[in-house]
C-alpha cells in the first residue's frame, strides 16, 4: 500500500503471462514503478519488450481468458489487480485513460468524431446530450481542432493523421483523468506532426495536471517529455532512472545500445550502431541475463555470470537502478572509452 499521496500509480512486481498453444509467454516479469501526479514516466524498449502489455494490464484491458496477471497495481491507493472488473471499468476513461499508436484504427470508422467523444462523456457523467456535446466541442478546441462544429460531424477517415490523434487525446482527456497512458502516440505520425502532438501533450499535462505513462521506443520523445525513464527488455525492467541520468549516466549495456542507435548529425560516423541480434523470445527466455545473448560486454564478466544468473535490479544511486553484472568501474571505463553519456 502506497503511503505517498503524490503517487497516482504504483506498480509492484507485475507479472503478465499468456498461455498459448506453443507454451507460456512471459510478457512482463516482476516490473515495478511509480508515477507521481503530474509527472511523466517513459517506458522505453523494443517491440516485444512488454511495455505495451504492462500498460494494458494496468488499464484492465487484458481481458482474454489466456492471460494471467499477478502482482500489485495501486491506482490512487486502490489495488486494481484481482479487483472487480466493473470497478476498474468505471475508472477507465474517467480517472485513467489511454491513447494508442495508430489513431485511424483506434477510432471507430462508423461513428462521427462528435458521437465518439459524446459517448465518452456520457459513460461517466449523467448529463444531457447537449451538455455532452458542448463539452466535446470545448475539448476539441483545446486540442487544436479547427472548425470544431463541422469536424464533429465528420468521420475519422476524413481527418488527417495528426487531427485523428488530437481527437484521440481529446477523447482520453475529456473526463479529466489523473493518469494518461500514451502507447506510442506519435509513432504512426509524420515527423512534423509528432512534434505538434508532443507539444500538445505537454501543454495539456500542465493544464490538467495529468500524470503520463509514455510508452515509446523513440528516445527523442523521451528527452522531450519524460521526467523518469524505465527501460524494458525481454519483459523485465533493466534500468530505471530520472531522464537526465538515462542520457548522461546510463548504466546498462542495453540502454547504451539504445542511445548509440540514435542517428546523430554531429557524429562523424558513416554508420549507425545498431544493437546486434534480435529480442529474445518471451516463450523461452534465456536462463541468465535476458540481454546476455546480444551483449558485447559479457566477456568482461567473470565466471560466465551473464549466461547463468539474471542480475538483480540494484541501486546505482538513490534514484537510479540498473541490472548488470559489470562492476561500476568497468561500466565507467566502457562509457568513457565509447563516449556514452556524459563522462
Amino acid at each position: 500500500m502506497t503511503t505517498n499521496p503524490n503517487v497516482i500509480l504504483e506498480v509492484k512486481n507485475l507479472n503478465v503471462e499468456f498461455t498459448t498453444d506453443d507454451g507460456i509467454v512471459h510478457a512482463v516479469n516482476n516490473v515495478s514503478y511509480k508515477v507521481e501526479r503530474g509527472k511523466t514516466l517513459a517506458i522505453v524498449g523494443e517491440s516485444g519488450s512488454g511495455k505495451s502489455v504492462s500498460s494494458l494490464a494496468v488499464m484492465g484491458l487484458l481481458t482474454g481468458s489466456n492471460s494471467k496477471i499477478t502482482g500489485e497495481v495501486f491506482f490512487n491507493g486502490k489495488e486494481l489487480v484481482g479487483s472487480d472488473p466493473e470497478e476498474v471499468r468505471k475508472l477507465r476513461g474517467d480517472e485513467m485513460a489511454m491513447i494508442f499508436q495508430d489513431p485511424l484504427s483506434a477510432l471507430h470508422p462508423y461513428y462521427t468524431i462528435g458521437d465518439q467523444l459524446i459517448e465518452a462523456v456520457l459513460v461517466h457523467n449523467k448529463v444531457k446530450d447537449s451538455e455532452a456535446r458542448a463539452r466535446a466541442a470545448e475539448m476539441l478546441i483545446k486540442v487544436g481542432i479547427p472548425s470544431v462544429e463541422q469536424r464533429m460531424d465528420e468521420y475519422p477517415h476524413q481527418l488527417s493523421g495528426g487531427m485523428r490523434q488530437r481527437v484521440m487525446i481529446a477523447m482520453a482527456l475529456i473526463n479529466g483523468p489523473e493518469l494518461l497512458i500514451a502507447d506510442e502516440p506519435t509513432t504512426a505520425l509524420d515527423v512534423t506532426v509528432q512534434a505538434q502532438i508532443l507539444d500538445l501533450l505537454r501543454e495539456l499535462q500542465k493544464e490538467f495536471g495529468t500524470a503520463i505513462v509514455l510508452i515509446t521506443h523513440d528516445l527523442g520523445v523521451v528527452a522531450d517529455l519524460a521526467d523518469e525513464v524505465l527501460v524494458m527488455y525481454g519483459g523485465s525492467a533493466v534500468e530505471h532512472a530520472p531522464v537526465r541520468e538515462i542520457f548522461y549516466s546510463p548504466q546498462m549495456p542495453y540502454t547504451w545500445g539504445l542511445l548509440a542507435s540514435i542517428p546523430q548529425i554531429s557524429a562523424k560516423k558513416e554508420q549507425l550502431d545498431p544493437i546486434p541480434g534480435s529480442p529474445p523470445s518471451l516463450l523461452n527466455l534465456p536462463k541468465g541475463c535476458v540481454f546476455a545473448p546480444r551483449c558485447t560486454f559479457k566477456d568482461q564478466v567473470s565466471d560466465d555470470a551473464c549466461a547463468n544468473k539474471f542480475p538483480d535490479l540494484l541501486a546505482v544511486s538513490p534514484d537510479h537502478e540498473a541490472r548488470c553484472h559489470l562492476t561500476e568501474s568497468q561500466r565507467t571505463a566502457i562509457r568513457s572509452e565509447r563516449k556514452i553519456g556524459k563522462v
Partner: protein
Amino acid sequence: MFPYIVRRIFVMILMLTILSIVTFLLFNAVPTDPAKLTCGKTCTPEIVAANRIRLGLDQPLYVQYIDWIKGIFVGRTYGSGTATFDCSAPCLGYSFRNGEEVTTMIVNALPVTLYLAIGAFVLWMLIGISSGIVAAKNHGNWKDRTIMGISLIGYSLPVFFVGLLLLIFVIVRWNLLPYPDYASPFEDPVAFFQTMLLPWFTLAILYAAYYTRLTRSQMLETMGEDYIRTARAKGLSERVVFRKHAFRAGLTPIVTSAGLDLAGLLGGAVITEYIFSLPGLGRLAIGAVTEYDLPTITATVLVAAVFVIVANLIVDILYAAIDPRVRLS
C-alpha cells in the same frame, strides 16, 4: 450518397443488358431447332416452317433479340395476318409445351419461391446470427465448441439429404405433417404452413450453419480491432462494446452474404422445391429444361439473374448506409 446510388444503378442497367444478350445467345446455342420443338406429334415440315415464321425465328439474330427485348417492355404480337397471337408486356415468350405465356407461368411460380426463400431466410438469419454471437462471446469454451460442432454437421449435410430425411421421418414414418400439397397462404394458411415448414427448415439448416460460422468469425475478428480496445479504454461496458461497437462493424460482410444468398434462392431452390413438390421457379426451370421448353428456360434464367443483380444493388446501398467510408469516398 446520391451519386453513389446513381452510379450503381447505371452499372446495374449495363449488367442487365449484357446479361440479356448472353441469355438470348444461350437460347440460340441450344443444339435443337426451336421451331421443331413447337409442333406436336403430328409434325409436318410445313407446320415447322409456318411456326418458324410465326415466332420470328426466320429473322436475323439481332432482330430476334430486339423483338424479344421489345416484348419484355411493350409486348409483342406473334405471327401475321389472321393467325396472330398477342403477348402483352412484359412478354417473356410463349411456351408451346404448356400452351401458356411464359410470363403467366413465372407469375404463378414466383410467389411460391418467394415464400420459401424468405421464410427460410428469416429462420436461418435468426438462428445463424444469434448462435454465431453466442459462440463468439464464449470463444474457446464448451458452448463455442458445441455450437461449432453442430454447425459443422449442419454445414456438411446436403440439402437433398436433409430434405429427404425430414420428408421420410416427419411425414412418412411419424405422420407429424400431411403430405406436402402447396396451397396459397391467402386461401388455406394452415395447409400452407404445413407444407412450408419442412422446406423452410431444410434450407435453413444449411444456411444457418454457414451464417453461424460467418457471424462468429466476423465478431471475433472485429473484437480484436483497435477501436474495440479504445471503446473498452473509454470505460464502456462489455455489453455496449459488443452491441454498439463490434456488431455494427462485424455486420457488413454478413449483409453482403445474406443479400446474395437470398437472391440466389429467389431464382429457385431447385432441390428443395422438387423434394417437397413446391410449384416454384426452380421446379419450373427444371421442368422446362427436361422438356426443351426454350422460352421458359431463357425466362427463368433471366429472372434469376435479375434477382441477383438487383440484390447486388441493394447490398451496395446497405453497405453505404452502414459504412460511412463507402458513402463518403
